[in-house]
């Protein structure tokens, strides 16, 4: 009798611990939406949504900032380059730069560009109104496409930065995957 009770107690304990294990497994997955929400609330990683200007920016004509433009391809048969290597601007002044992509292959390919900035907190001072990275890009075989990026660097950019870099990397989107901001 006593041993039967003991076995039963042990099995109850095992069930509880197995439930806890499953809960923790689900918790690992729950960290994904939690992380996305956290970043959204904290304003981190919010790189793929158009910005709007809430107020007129004053142009800081007292200094120049050089913006270097960079383009990369990850596993795509495309050519991708900015039409100018760099632009020199005053903070607060609206800027438009052009990028060009070429599909060298014989098939239609969908790609998604992901931005990356240096210094890494640049997103706090960068307001982007139009960008090819806001949506997926579909290129027919041998198609050439030129795409603008319109943005402004806010005068809040710390004074010690004279050169900043804006970089894009194109990845292939598998057929059927929604673009990031269409989710």
């Amino acid at each position, binding site marked *: 009798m006593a041993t039967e009770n*003991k076995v039963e107690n042990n099995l109850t*304990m*095992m069930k509880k*611990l197995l439930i806890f*294990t499953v809960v*923790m497994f689900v918790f*690992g997955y729950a960290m994904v939406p939690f992380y996305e929400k956290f970043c959204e609330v904290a304003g981190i990683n919010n790189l793929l949504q158009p910005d709007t200007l809430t107020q007129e920016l004053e142009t800081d004509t007292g200094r120049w900032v050089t913006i270097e433009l960079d383009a990369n391809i990850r596993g795509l048969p495309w050519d991708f380059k900015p039409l100018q290597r760099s632009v020199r601007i005053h903070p607060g002044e609206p800027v438009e730069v052009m990028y060009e992509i070429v599909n060298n292959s014989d098939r239609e390919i969908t790609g998604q560009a992901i931005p990356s900035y240096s210094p*890494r907190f640049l997103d706090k001072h960068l307001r982007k109104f139009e960008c090819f990275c806001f949506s997926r890009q579909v290129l027919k075989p041998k198609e050439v496409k030129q795409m603008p990026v319109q943005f402004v660097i806010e005068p809040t950019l710390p004074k010690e930065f004279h050169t900043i870099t804006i970089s894009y990397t194109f990845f292939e989107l598998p057929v059927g995957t929604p673009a*990031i901001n269409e989710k």
Partner: protein
Amino acid sequence: MAAVHGDVHGHGHDDHHPTGIMRWVTTTNHKDIGTMYLWFSLTMFFTGGFLAMGIRAELFQPGIQILEPELFNSFTTLHGLIMVFGAIMPAFVGFANWQVPMMIGAPDMAFARMNNWSFWLLIPAALLLISSFFVPGGAAAGGWTFYPPLSTQGGLGVDMMLFAVHILGASSIMGSINIITTILNMRAPGMTLMKMPLFVWTWLITAYLLVLAMPVLAGVVTMLITDRHFDTSFFNAAGGGDPVLFQHIFWFFGHPEVYIMILPAFGIVSEIIPTFSRKPLFGYSSMVYATASIAILSCIVWAHHMFTAGMPTVGQLFFMYATMLIAVPTGVKVFNWTATMWRGAMSFETPMLFAIGFIFLFVIGGFSGVICAIVPIDIQVQDTYYVIAHFHYVLVSGALFALFGGAYYWLPKWTGHMYDETLGKLHFWLSMIFFNMAFFVQHFLGLAGMPRRIPDYALQFADFNMISSLGAFGFGLTQLLFVYIVIKCIRSKEPAPEKPWEGATTLEWTHLPTPAPYHSFETPPVVK
């Protein structure tokens, strides 16, 4: 303790079990399974050690001599994975299997069949890890933390590694469910929670950490596998995922994992120090609470591994202070061990030497941990040899030294024979010297900026690297001596004394004969 001998003679009946290989394949006996765990972890220790020797041989001189960079990266990756999941963790589970039932007066583990499964799962996992070196593309090479994008890009070797980690995780979860149930449900009458030996306490808390952290690892490994093969984009930037997310989930598992590897070591040391000081452990209840506090804190400090990955300053400050807070309960432990030794009638047999060596060197590793916790310093030393030195001080001279100490302490109880004290002391002193020679200089290398996981280095690092490599070779060779000592002990003809350590007070010494019979405590002892 007068009732001791009536119980001892109750075990006169024969220990019937299958013989030969089937004894080990089908066994559900906690002592057999503990023995298999210990031999397995020793084998994996030498496998991981072989990889470490390869790494140090390549780093002996600047330039590329022995290992091509890709293979070097596989060596560092598999060295880490094998030592963490194959050597240190199973060794502690082996100790738990042998000791927990004997120390709480239970006849066996709660789920004996599951215990057998959790051991035998380790074998395919180990084979997957080792054989991944021989598949096209080679073994995983992205570091033991398998960060994407490297781990989403590698070849078959990465899949084998991920699958192995899955199996090892399942084994750990089963093992910890078993240990928790055994400790909570199967204690002898009178063995209240606050009378349990500290080794049992630390394992109870460790087992809870395991069921908390391991499923999260299983989750993140599953996400990687679906990213690799089923077009999900958890960590793939192109599909809207984020590689930094991986680091958060991985370290949510990874930091408790660090304490999973050290808490049972605390437990072993807390058994050895009182025995050889011939005094009860100082501050027993504060030890229990300190262990619990460390376990709880370990769940909220994970992002200190990622200070350079980018996070808001508020986050950096939180994780920095939370991390530094762990030094408080850890300090409580160190002071309690010191106070236990204070004015004790101390003697310095091999287990005690390893325990004192543990305290001395673990404190160095603990302090360099506090240094790494400070954000501005961490940004400097991130991914340098300073970090390598830090975690080898806590894992080698911490976890491993405690394992050696525990092995010497309980070998007479397990085998019925005494180990060779002279050789044991030699093993300790050689380990002590070579360990420090191998790893102390790595602090300097790290502070001077030598990065980890790189097969070559700038010329100014040459001298320290040569010293470190010589120390590592010496340390590796010294461990062969340990194998010799263990085998000599098992084969010895001379029986060990019933109670070789006069200061020992736990049940396995006071209520069981030496060697411990195959079945022990079928009638539970009564603890006063």
